[in-house]
């Protein structure tokens, strides 16, 4: 029995398309997992299967020893799993602060609150009354991260953290990542930039067409081996 996340043989569909063919992984508390793979490999579907936006057709998701397979998103967030979705998906008719408040409204206690977030991302305090989608891409990503942190999660799923952001902004956000994950919080990181993801992670999992092609610790595998696993060659 693990007190982290255990995924066993999960099969999920994206519409009529079978996106995951029996994926398994295990993640200990406080660890960061880099989830890599080409477009359409099933990374987002795996994250959604964990946080309850997709209900797996087979297999099991266990979180802190509890079977959470098929629970809805409203329930998994109450159990401490938060998602920073691909494309950020901020609520466009809500202000920055309202987006953050909504993130915290399930009322889990923990270190994160509005003030702590504003200390982490001071620009958000300055712009807190603006419509969330009027911010720059990088600032919007900060709101999306903040919104997830406000629920005081024990596991954060970051989907395409740097997609569409300027390199300097990406560097900034990654510089903050240890502050976020340094408190015993685990994370799964989906990222196009494989090198950056592997540097930030303790372990990795590579998906090809919905199947695990390679997994382990970054330092145990050569870059060539990981690259071969990525392209499925």
């Amino acid at each position, binding site marked *: 029995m693990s007190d982290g996340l255990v995924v066993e043989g999960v099969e999920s569909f994206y519409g009529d398309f079978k996106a995951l063919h029996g994926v398994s992984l295990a993640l200990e508390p406080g660890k960061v997992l880099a989830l890599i793979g080409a477009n359409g490999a099933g990374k987002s579907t795996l994250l959604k299967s964990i946080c309850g*936006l997709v209900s797996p057709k087979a297999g099991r998701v266990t979180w802190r020893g509890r079977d959470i397979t098929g629970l809805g*998103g*409203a329930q998994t967030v*109450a159990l401490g799993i938060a998602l920073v979705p691909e494309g950020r998906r901020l609520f466009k*008719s*809500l202000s920055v602060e*309202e987006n953050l408040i*909504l993130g915290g*409204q399930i009322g889990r206690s923990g270190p994160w609150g509005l003030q702590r977030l504003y200390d982490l991302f001071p620009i958000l305090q300055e712009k807190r009354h603006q419509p969330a989608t009027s911010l720059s891409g990088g600032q919007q990503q900060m709101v999306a991260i903040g919104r997830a942190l406000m629920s005081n999660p024990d596991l954060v799923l970051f989907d395409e953290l740097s997609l569409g952001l300027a390199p300097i902004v990406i560097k900034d956000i990654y510089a903050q990542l240890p502050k976020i994950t340094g408190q015993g919080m685990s994370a799964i990181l989906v990222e196009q930039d494989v090198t950056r993801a592997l540097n930030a992670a303790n372990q990795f999992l590579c998906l090809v067409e919905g199947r695990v092609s390679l997994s382990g610790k970054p330092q145990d595998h050569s870059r060539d081996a990981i690259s071969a696993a990525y392209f499925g060659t």
Partner: protein
Amino acid sequence: MDLINIILQGVLVGGLYALFAAGLSLIFGVMRLVNIAHGDLIVLAAYIAMEVIRLSGLPPLVALIFVVPVMAAFGYALQRGILNRTLGGDLLPPLLVSFGLSVILQNGLLAVFTADSRKLDAGVLETASVSFGGLSIGLLPALMFATAVAVIAALQFMFYKTALGRAFRATSDDAEIAELMGLDRRRVYAWAMALCLGVVAIAGVFLAIRSNFDPFMGPGRLIFGFEAVIIGGLGNLWGTLAGGVILGVAQGLGAAIDPGWQILAGHVAFLLILAIKPRGLFPRMDG
């Protein structure tokens, strides 16, 4: 002077039309649902009020204390039990199910209450008026308009300043992600429908005090509310009030020319605005 009087009466009646429209606007904003049975629910509220008054002897406006919660609870149950199952992107199911609901409500009311037209008696309120400078303002129309303004102000406040309104807006923006904030969309939608039918209850009681009603009046009220929403611009509650006023004034002017043209003049005003400004007079900017 006559013309000013006609316009003034039209403005005040516009308040009632805004009450018909406000709930329609709210649920469209939250869940993109157009409820064909909306008008029939207004009529249902009028009959419930009639029964409450018969059993309790309360004056109509006081009876709202019972009618509003009863209708709101009905709305919550209706959304959870039936309408939530129709939502999911496709246009047909919600439209056709609410159309079926409309026929059921009309014939259900007919079976229970017969086709006789009824009216609620509000006593002296109906005839009292204040006049100045040749203009006469009935107390009832004035109260109706003031109620419409108050209801829309309250909805506006709820929508933009409260946690419930935040939940409505977030679910409307992105229901899937809202779920990850702990917002169960089925419950959020049910609350929206409860609120909508609370407003419908107020509209139904005013309708029943102002004029005769029968089981088949619903579709006409739906159309007035719909026209007010489109004239004012989708998603703009104050615009909806303006839409109701324009509709009321157009009907008043039409009736002044020929009583048979009253309703027609309202429809023509609606079609003109649709032709000139298809998004309504005051469309919401971000829509």
